[in-house]
């Protein structure tokens, strides 16, 4: 030992520093390996615990789930298995989480009485309180998870709690709350949109559309009620849904919307009128030509929509006016609309090309391979 100390003190200071650094690095590496190994062990043991719990729950769940309308199993039997589940689960958070995940996993694959019995199990085991507790957590990920669980298990009693998360600061929580409300909104009335003031992403719109597509079309709300919503996202969403679900009774309200000061709303309104084949809107749409002449996007939309809903000579005159528009895509859209509107409109188109200024566009429009 004394030798080592003497040798150490004889060493030059650079070598000492090098040895010390090497020792620290070695210790660090060792600690890292121990950390990796122990975290792997913890993970494995957790997985094992989960698997044991899952198989323990599954037996009782199978019986409760498939007891549906069977006379041979008295209600007391279901109660027995529920108590068994309650006993197995105890107060452990891990067990509650495993059970919740198991119920969600099963419910997404089942319909009918079995799926309903899973919802009952969720409530009777008071797992709704467990998920509600998570939905009120400070951590945004736990909160989002809680909201997701409540929605997946159709817990309608949590509607108000979920609604209170609609304006959460965290975007994931907000989106999860929104989607949960859509899922729990069984009559598809979407009334919670009335108080919605946060952004509505395209992803959310897509999910709502998917949800509404699978619902009873007769129960869909009248989307025109949100055209003048203070949240522009909701108003645009309502316009989009009017178009998607072809709500023809909204045409008069759409025509009124042509005077809206917000241009993105007007663009979508013109598109919607075209997609709804609202011929009664051809005059109001064509009357907007001069007002929106300087706006290329709107001019293009008017030209395109008039091609769909225009039917009289004055509409074609508006279109021929667009043939001299400074923007190429507006001229092109107008030419295409006139080309599709029959012989009289084609005559106007050819007359406008007397000096050959539209030859390129006409070649494009007439090419059968390039027609949309």
């Amino acid at each position, binding site marked *: 030992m004394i030798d080592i100390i003497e040798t150490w003190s004889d060493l030059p200071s650079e070598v000492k520093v090098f040895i010390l650094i090497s020792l620290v690095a070695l210790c660090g590496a060792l600690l890292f390996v121990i950390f990796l190994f122990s975290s792997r062990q913890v993970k494995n043991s957790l997985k094992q615990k989960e698997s044991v719990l*899952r198989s323990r729950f*599954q037996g009782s*769940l*199978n*019986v409760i*789930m*498939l007891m*549906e309308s069977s006379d041979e199993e008295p209600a007391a039997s279901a109660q027995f298995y529920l108590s068994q589940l309650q006993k197995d689960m105890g107060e452990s958070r891990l067990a509650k989480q495993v059970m919740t995940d*198991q119920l969600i*996993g*099963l419910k*997404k*694959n*089942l*319909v*009918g*009485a*079995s*799926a309903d019995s899973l919802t009952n199990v969720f409530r009777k085991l008071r797992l709704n309180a467990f998920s509600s507790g998570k939905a009120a957590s400070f951590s945004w990920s736990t909160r989002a998870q809680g909201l997701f669980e409540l929605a997946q298990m159709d817990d309608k009693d949590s509607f108000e709690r979920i609604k209170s998360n609609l304006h959460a600061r965290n975007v994931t929580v907000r989106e999860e709350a929104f989607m949960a409300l859509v899922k729990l909104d069984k009559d598809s009335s979407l009334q919670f949109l009335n108080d919605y003031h946060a952004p509505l992403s395209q992803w959310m719109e897509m999910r709502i559309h998917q949800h509404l597509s699978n619902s009873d079309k007769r129960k869909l709300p009248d989307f025109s009620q949100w055209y003048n919503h203070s949240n522009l996202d909701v108003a645009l969403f309502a316009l989009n849904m009017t178009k998607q679900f072809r709500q023809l009774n909204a045409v008069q309200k759409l025509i009124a919307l042509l005077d809206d000061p917000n241009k993105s709303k007007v663009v979508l309104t013109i598109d919607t009128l075209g997609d709804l084949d609202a011929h009664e809107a051809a005059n109001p749409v064509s009357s907007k030509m001069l007002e929106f002449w300087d706006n290329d996007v709107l001019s293009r939309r008017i030209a395109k929509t008039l091609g769909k809903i225009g039917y009289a000579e004055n509409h074609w005159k508006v279109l021929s006016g667009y043939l001299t528009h400074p923007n190429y895509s507006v001229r092109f859209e107008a030419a295409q609309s006139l080309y599709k509107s029959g012989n009289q409109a084609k005559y106007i188109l050819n007359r406008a090309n007397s000096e050959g200024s539209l030859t390129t566009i006409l070649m494009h429009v007439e090419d059968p391979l390039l027609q949309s």
Partner: protein
Amino acid sequence: MNILLCDDDDVLASMIQFKLSRENLGEVTRAADGKLAKELLNNSHFDLVITDIHMPFHSGLEIVTYIRQVLKQSMPIIVLSAEGLENTVLQAFEVGANDFITKPFSPAELAIRVRRLLRI
């Protein structure tokens, strides 16, 4: 009756196994992946096969093709899948499936379809 159930979702497979056994439709053997399903098919006789489409190693459609084209067996096959797209359904029938059930499904309905295919 021997029924082979191929599904990698352990919880769901356990529920189906319980339902079919409870309805006295036969003894259910489970395979959690396509490889095990093939092995079981090579070594045992089954009166009916229920298979999911998305499984590790071999898909459900591959299993159906294997049964019909390699093993040349004609037992009834039910394809059970969350993917209810027209193309998938048509493909399943083309390769030799007898029935197609889209998830989410009713276990009671599955039992009736099994009973009908097994003629019991």
